[in-house]
């Protein structure tokens, strides 16, 4: 009887831990978001870039984008909330918009075209996967230092 209860407790503990791990998978998934203030076309419709856009994600440093610029931000989880501050022309007063959207789990890097987004185009028009290019260190492999004789340096 006691053994049975113990087993039950153990199974429950493992289930809970696995559940926590699953939750971490969802809420902890990191994405890198790239914001483009570039011209884009969708179904023959061309969207012009704004004069100036300031995108702020959470408490990260705002990225200020002139025409043709690209900015970057990090987001954790699948919900992206950002403030987009648009200046239409030189000297014009900026108007801010709060935008939030769901982003696909599978993408590490995501490019969002701000003009297309603000123009109200469908998701496939403004959102695309950004494939990170690994800085090519040439064909030469980096040498692996297994630290057999090293002192381990600093703590």
């Amino acid at each position, binding site marked *: 009887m006691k053994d049975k209860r113990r087993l039950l407790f153990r199974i429950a503990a493992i289930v809970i831990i696995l559940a926590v791990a699953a*939750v971490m998978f969802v809420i*902890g*998934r990191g994405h890198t978001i790239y914001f483009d203030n570039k011209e884009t076309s969708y179904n023959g419709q061309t969207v012009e870039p704004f004069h100036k856009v300031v995108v702020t994600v959470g408490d990260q440093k705002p990225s200020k984008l002139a025409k043709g610029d690209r900015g970057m931000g990090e987001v*954790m989880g699948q919900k992206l909330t950002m403030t987009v501050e648009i200046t239409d022309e030189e000297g014009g007063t900026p108007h801010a918009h709060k935008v939030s959207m769901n982003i696909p789990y599978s993408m*590490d890097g995501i490019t969002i075209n701000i003009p297309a987004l603000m123009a109200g185009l469908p998701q496939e028009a403004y959102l695309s996967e950004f494939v*990170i290019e690994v800085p090519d260190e040439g064909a030469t492999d980096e040498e692996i230092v297994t630290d057999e004789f090293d002192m381990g340096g600093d*703590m």
Partner: protein
Amino acid sequence: MKKDNKTKSSPDMRFIIQKFSVPLMFIIICAICIPLSGLSANMLINEIVTRMGRNAFLILSLLIPIMAGMGLNFGMTLGAMAAEIALIFVADWQIVGIPGMVLAAIVSVPISVLLGIFCGKILNEAKGREMITSYIMSFFVNGIYQLVVLYLMGSIIPIKHGAIKLPRGYGIRNTVSLLSMRQKLDNLLAINIGGVKIPVLTFIIIALLCLFIVWFSKTKLGQDMRAVGQDMDVARDAGINVERTRIISIVMSTVLAGFGMIIYLQNMGNIATYSAHSQIGMFCIAALLVGGASVDRATIGNVFLGVILFHTMFIVAPKAGAAITGDSMIGEYFRVFVSYAVITVALIMYETNKRRAKKTAGQQLAEAQKAEEAGAAAGTTQADNAGKEKA
């Protein structure tokens, strides 16, 4: 009776001096080196607080095997390696921030437990030589770790991201960035007092571990461990499963060391894939011993005193060495030498004490037998008392 008193007080004095000799020596070294290093008090305190948060958890993981009489667990490196493997996975899955750390902790547990059971079983086969065996064990598992990380990851174990993988297609790079996790734990709830950043959450976690250790030592299992640590044969006669208890103590230490390593690495912000764990055992053990612990006795107080003293020395020695000799390498070699020397001295003290205790125990036994022969029951109680004092 008079003579008895005298002999009683002198070992006490000796005991006290011996107990505090290492911390005292370090206080002197630090006192000499701090002014020479030219570091400001603010900078020094900042560094020590950072290092306290970084290392305390790791060092605390050493306490449980000491409780079980298995000496300094050089095999804590095993936990560190488990944590590194877990973090490599988490980095590849792109789970970031604190959720990433929690996930890494969860992933590290089964690896740590397996390695801990393996290590514990081997140590049970090598009773009386636990330390050298756990030391060689750390090398052995390092070989397996290299096999897994350098050859199997990317070829058999899926690793997706090119930023982690070597360009040749398998194996992990020399450094794996944990930028998305860097000091996330330290910075959450951090407060700033007079220019010193205090990672409150990290300290809370360390405090919780301290509470756990205190609580654990009072549980049935904790008491069993103490009993095993005192005398395996007596413990076995008392119905304790000695082998199992010892394995549990190593498993706990390995798992905790794994958590400690995650805290350590989130502070560093990157993993030196092939070297981060290699000296961690040595530095943690040295720090614990500097805090006044010995091979068979260590408290939570030793951990904190040790972190402060050892790391003060660690910070100031290269700068002080450069100030004296004009060569910063001297200071770096000096601190490495001191780390090793402290461990050597502690090991020597432990072994000589053990021999002395054995000798006195033998003498007491002989005396007790003599007294018994004389028919006086008082003899035995005296010997018993003396035995208790020793313990």
